[in-house]
């Protein structure tokens, strides 16, 4: 079947099966920044934005995304650059496998929460696991990005 959606502001028509997940459809169509981590909806690595909200693309059927606005990190390059620079400053980059999905979630959080505390930030991002950094450097960088009103 053919499914139409908007990916990073471009209208796309994907050929897919009813059982295909958005993660695989996106990866098969060269959106390789969207990656698989766990298979059980626990790790957050496959997160994309659907109509602006973070969702796990491993658990959204491609057909469920019909007509929706999908955003991958390729769609928020300017903000990703800002987030990435704060990560660089804080030494928060390690393996980076989870970083595109984390950047998307942080970007959505900035729109959703007004001046959140570190506790609220931790709670919002709890579904974005990281095994490398110990989280604290990421959070220092994220707090700086949240305070960046440019």
């Amino acid at each position, binding site marked *: 079947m053919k499914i139409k959606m908007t990916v990073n502001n471009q209208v796309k028509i994907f050929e897919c099966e009813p059982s295909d997940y958005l993660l695989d459809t996106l990866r*098969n169509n060269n959106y*390789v*920044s969207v*990656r*698989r*981590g*766990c*298979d*059980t909806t*626990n*790790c957050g*690595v496959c997160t994309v934005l659907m109509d602006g909200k973070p969702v796990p693309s491993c658990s959204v059927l491609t057909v469920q995304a019909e007509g929706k606005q999908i955003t*991958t*990190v*390729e769609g928020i*390059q300017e903000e*990703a*650059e800002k*987030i*990435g*620079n704060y*990560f*660089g*400053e*804080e*030494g*928060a*980059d*390690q*393996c*980076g*496998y*989870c*970083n*595109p999905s984390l*950047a998307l979630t942080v970007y959505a959080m900035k729109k959703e929460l007004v001046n959140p505390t570190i506790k609220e930030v*931790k*709670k919002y*991002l*709890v579904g*974005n*696991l*990281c*095994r*490398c*950094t*110990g*989280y*604290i*450097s*990421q*959070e220092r960088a994220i707090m700086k990005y949240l305070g960046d009103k440019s």
Partner: protein
Amino acid sequence: MKVVNNLTHSVDGLGILKGRAAYTDDLADKNSLIVKVLRSPHAYAKIVKIDSEEALKLPGIEMVLTHKDFSRVPFTRAGQGYPEPSPHDKFVLDEYVRYVGDEVLAVVGSDLAVCEEALALIKVEYELLEPVLDFEKAIDHKSIIHPEPEAHEMFPIGFEPLRNIAASYHMHVGDVEKTLSECDVVIEETFFTQAQAHVMLEPHTVNARMDYQERLVIYNSTQTPYHMRRIISQGLNIPLSKIRVIKPRVGGGFGGKQGIHGEMLVAYVTYKTGKAAKMVYTRKEVFESSYTRHPMKMKVTLGADKSGVLKAIDFHCLSDTGAYGEHALTVFMVVGSKVLPLYNKVDSVRFYGDVVYTNHTPAGAYRGYGAIQGNFALESAVDMLCVKLGMNPIEFRQLNMMKETETSPIFEIMGEGTAGTAMIMETCKLEECVEKGMKLIDWNDKYPSKDMGNKIKSVGMAIAMQGSGIPYIDMGSATIKLNDDGFYNLLVGATDIGQGSDTVLAQIAAEVLMTTMDKIVIYSSDTDLTPFDCGAYASSTTYVSGNAVFKAANDMLEAILVEARRILKSKEVEFDGVLFTNELGETISLIDLSNEITYSEDQKQLSVTSSYVGHKSPPPFMAGFIEIDIDKETGEVDIVNYVSVVDCGTTINPKLAEGQVDGGIVQGLGMAMFENVQYSKKGALISNSLMTYKIPTRVDINNLTTVFVDSYEESGPFGAKSVGEIGIDTPPAALANAVYNALGIRIKTLPITAEKILLAIKAKERN
């Protein structure tokens, strides 16, 4: 220094965060055949019959591979140097399956769906054998896990397969029993640690294709591209010259990607069919069918005199290597060699025991291997001895621990798999680490505990050491070439797996060459293009590969000065990284020089390659302090803060070094508190997904305070030692000690869960 020890962004972080194709599966051929493994449902069985007739009829199924397709060449998947100190006890596929999740056969098809359909159609008949599931009963069990005659050791490691022993070891200094009999205070305690999982977020992934020279090109998420090439060549009998291994960005390794996983099968399929092939482990496969940390039982006996001087350590260890013996001996030896020298003033010390086979998921390399287990046992036991001595545990450590300019006989006796190397501690700032940590955690105010109503606040601590590579074994090398326009390529075999070694190595080169990071273009790793490096393990990259880069950069400096002297017709030329100046004040810029030698006159490519092999392994040291709040009625623990004070020599990249420690601490806390490994009665791993195996989340980690003390290790590049593993060692013992300081309860089996604490509180109340 302008670049080293200064804030420098990681060279790859921004591009990765912005979503560039970077990881192994991002680079797979879109038409790759899928290789999917049928995994054993039984802990121990012999395959009697495989019927794959129906599966082979499915359109899209290319082949079904069984043990009959492979010659019986045993190898080890450990991913070590050669000859390996691990037993050669694994075949690509075998007629025996030795754990739930072991490889039975593989199907190869055009997509995942057809492969899964095929797997469901294949009928396998097994003869069930009695599994060995309790590692304390493994030795001389009536079931022998490796009866096959081909299994062998490469040199003596105590391999006795008919007794289910993968390796054995014994060392002693002095007469430990005699010393103990003369001690005023003796304690004997037994500790258990679990089979922690690495949980790197990128699953094990490999893909392969043939190139236009009919060579096998393997993209691989690995820590050891060169060892991988060699082991694949040996295991599949493909000439080494026909194999190219490319390591793209790697999504975390922690030791789990030191070894072989799907590489043999994928390489075989592509080499045989000429078609691209790939395998991506499911998360369940990562848990069940890769490696774990070695679970251990450790009996520690400590003896001291009344004044608190530690006189003897007797350490017996039993280690469970699971179904295959990867790293059996090396991990075991590190339990002693990277833990016991912490208390170097003892009269006698003994370390001994066995590494046994069981029918569980194999154990292998994992960050801090051996050290974290040994540290938990010894640093818990030290606090228990202090209770018996009536002595403050910090004062005890200050009296007994390793200090600068001292040594330990253990360094010479114990290496990794072989004898060790004697060395004096040129840098050991443990005293300062302890002192600083006490201040940062406010030890004197909080020790041992403070009652706060429902909750009780307490602190606990432990000290630790690691190594910096394996002397006389680990080799790293670097190639630097100068380009026109005056920038350099730095080619290293050192394996960046996310720890930031590309950044750190580029910084070292930039510092020596007096240039900026943008003039150093680093590339790792590709066995066709980059020089040899043993890979990312044993805390070796900054120290060993860093020294190689340091040497190469100095060689390049010399090479460009030769050209500058020639061009400026002068014996004395000074260089500031940008401009060459002779004694007459005549100058030429590096850019002009590079352009001239590339295009204009006496043209040549300047390129240097240098190698380094360590002659010692200077240990980094640290003191770890934890502050916790425990709910007295429920046993629930909040980690309030973890203070790490680290001596790793110069931090080449202070922020990335902090990240290494922070990440290690949180993995260590995971092992200490959360990561419970559970097996079914039949030996299947129950904790085989992120739903059942719980790693710490950011909400569980309130704060980390990580600082470095001033330290300069002469033998390291710009004074650096290693920092990759040291962070993981202290959390289990520090937590156990803090729980004791709060409640007077001693938990000796990891993980230290709220449930164990509460049930111990209740048991204590009943007595």
